[in-house]
């Protein structure tokens, strides 16, 4: 287990390093002068030179990279040009919206996908299965931002149950804040639930084909007993892996959905930063998102090792 952990931790560090290099190369080394992009076409040579000096653009790429990463490791993500505050401060504030949004959406998706996926598998090739899979196809095809708009149309414009957008800060109490995250979370959860229910269904069917399930049935165990004792436990392995992979897409979805509901999260921040050409903010948020994705994949690997009843080492290469 320890060597497995060490191996995984090494992979995590390597992936983080690769991600930071990739973001740096795309934003800082490829053609295009960041100072020119930030100030626009009308910039004077003096202001360009001043910004280049401030961003350290006169240094070599290697020094700039290590400066940046050194800062990041100390919690210094640089200064936002438009907001005039440290990026770390901005990000911490916005994470209070994005992280709860992603978690609520994820929980909703799992709560829907697990029972319906298993139900579809148990009723394979019967009307119940077709119904669940049909809805899953629809869920995959509905864009999350359109679903968000439809939810606003129904629950805010027609029924007046919710606000059409915006966020009630956590400081004003949990209730209003959670309420303002509910519709966005539903919008975000739809395609997630659709994908997961398909994964759950096929993972369940795979386990049903295993010899030990046939043996359990043959020795007289009832269908529900087989389902709960053998099938569900073993079905979780592939499902957890996909859940981890899907986390990145949940975050990407949050970037879009936040903009539908005018939620002050990371997604809205990054979009505004792009339109305001605040490259320091964009670079650091993308790194943060990449780091988050890599980290979640690491945690999933660990969870996998904990759930997997097989001995460690051989099963995972």
């Amino acid at each position, binding site marked *: 287990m320890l060597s497995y952990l060490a191996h995984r931790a090494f992979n995590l560090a390597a*992936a983080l390093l*690769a*991600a930071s290099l*990739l*973001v740096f190369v*795309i*934003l800082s080394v*490829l053609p*295009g002068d960041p100072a020119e*992009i930030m100030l626009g076409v009308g910039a004077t040579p003096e202001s360009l030179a001043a910004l280049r000096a401030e961003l350290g653009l006169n240094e070599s790429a290697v020094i700039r990279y290590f400066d940046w990463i050194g800062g990041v490791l100390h919690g210094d993500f640089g200064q936002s040009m438009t907001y005039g505050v440290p990026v770390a401060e901005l990000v911490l504030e916005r994470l209070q919206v994005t992280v709860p949004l992603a978690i609520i959406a994820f929980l909703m998706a799992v709560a829907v996908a697990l029972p319906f996926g298993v139900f579809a598998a148990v009723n394979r090739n019967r009307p119940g299965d077709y119904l669940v899979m049909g809805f899953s*196809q*629809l869920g*995959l*095809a*509905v*864009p*999350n*931002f*359109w679903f968000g*708009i*439809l939810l*606003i*149309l129904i629950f805010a*414009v027609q029924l007046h149950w919710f606000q*059409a957008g915006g966020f009630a800060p956590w400081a004003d109490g949990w209730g209003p804040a959670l309420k303002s995250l509910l519709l966005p979370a539903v919008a975000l959860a739809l395609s997630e639930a659709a*994908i997961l229910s*398909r994964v759950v269904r*096929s993972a369940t069917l795979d386990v049903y084909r295993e010899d030990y399930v046939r043996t359990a049935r043959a020795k007289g165990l009832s269908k529900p007993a087989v389902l709960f004792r053998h099938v569900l436990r073993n079905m979780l392995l592939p499902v957890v892996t996909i859940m981890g*992979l*899907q986390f*990145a*897409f949940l*975050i*990407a979805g949050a*970037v*879009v959905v936040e*903009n*539908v509901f005018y939620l002050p999260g990371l997604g809205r921040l*990054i*979009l505004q*930063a*792009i*339109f305001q050409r605040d*490259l320091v903010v*964009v*670079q650091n948020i*993308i790194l943060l*998102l*990449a780091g988050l*994705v*890599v980290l979640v*994949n690491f945690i999933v690997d660990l969870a996998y090792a904990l759930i997997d009843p097989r001995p460690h080492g051989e099963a995972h290469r």
Partner: protein
Amino acid sequence: MSGTRQKSLIRKALHRPNLVLGGFLTGFIFLTALAAAIGTPYPTDGVSIAERLQPPTAAHWLGTDSLGRDLLSMLMKGAQNAMLMGCVAVGIGLAVGVPAGLYAAMRKGLSVDAVMRLSDLIFAFPAILTAVLIAALYGPGVTNAILAVGIFNIAVFARVTRGAALNVMGRQFVTAAAAIGRPPIAIAIHHVLPNAAGAIIIQATIQFAVAILAEAGLSYLGLGVQPPDPSWGKMLNDAQTLMFTHPMQAVVPGAAIMVAVLGLNLLGDGLRDVLDPRLRIVRSG
């Protein structure tokens, strides 16, 4: 392919409701795009404030938008845009990803490991986030948006091609071809590729849907198609500000995206059932 096998494939296909429905919906969108390329009922670049936000009439079947443009014509142009985006994004992925995947399957060593690790990294990072990154540097625009989706597709097709090719590589006819001294390129093109084609075609259908969804999302955010060019995502963005007074404006373009994506996904699933039932489709984007 022999005549009888072809017939039985067609018969199998007709018994797949998802294949039939998917083919029908995809064909419908494709024909709409083709019709839009020839001409639309009304021009989509003219502004007519006098006719703005009209309800559906005999002249304008779906009404007009906030600039007085015919919604049906805008939808048709949007279909043309979506089809074009899908073709380019999937084309980039196929052109680079398939050779890369074949190469990675036939060779071993550090360079292959590095390439596959890089593709894992790109794959773990959703296309829409890559597009945001590229838009930040090169500015919002349709070329950058579609390039980002194309790069993501390269990683997808490299993985799918490599996986399918590795399955074939161990088979006897490949060993035999190598034994009689056929060069690796000939083996790749004549023996490996035809056997991986099914998986690649199925994935291409799914990636087409992913590209349409990503383009619509980026255009909705203002990072994709720029005005005045019509795009379903852009139309939704315009419609959101009119939601309280003209809700139908926000319903129609989204339904168009849904029909296109649903059609392509069903087509992909149906093709899988017929061509390669054991194949697992990679779903992400």
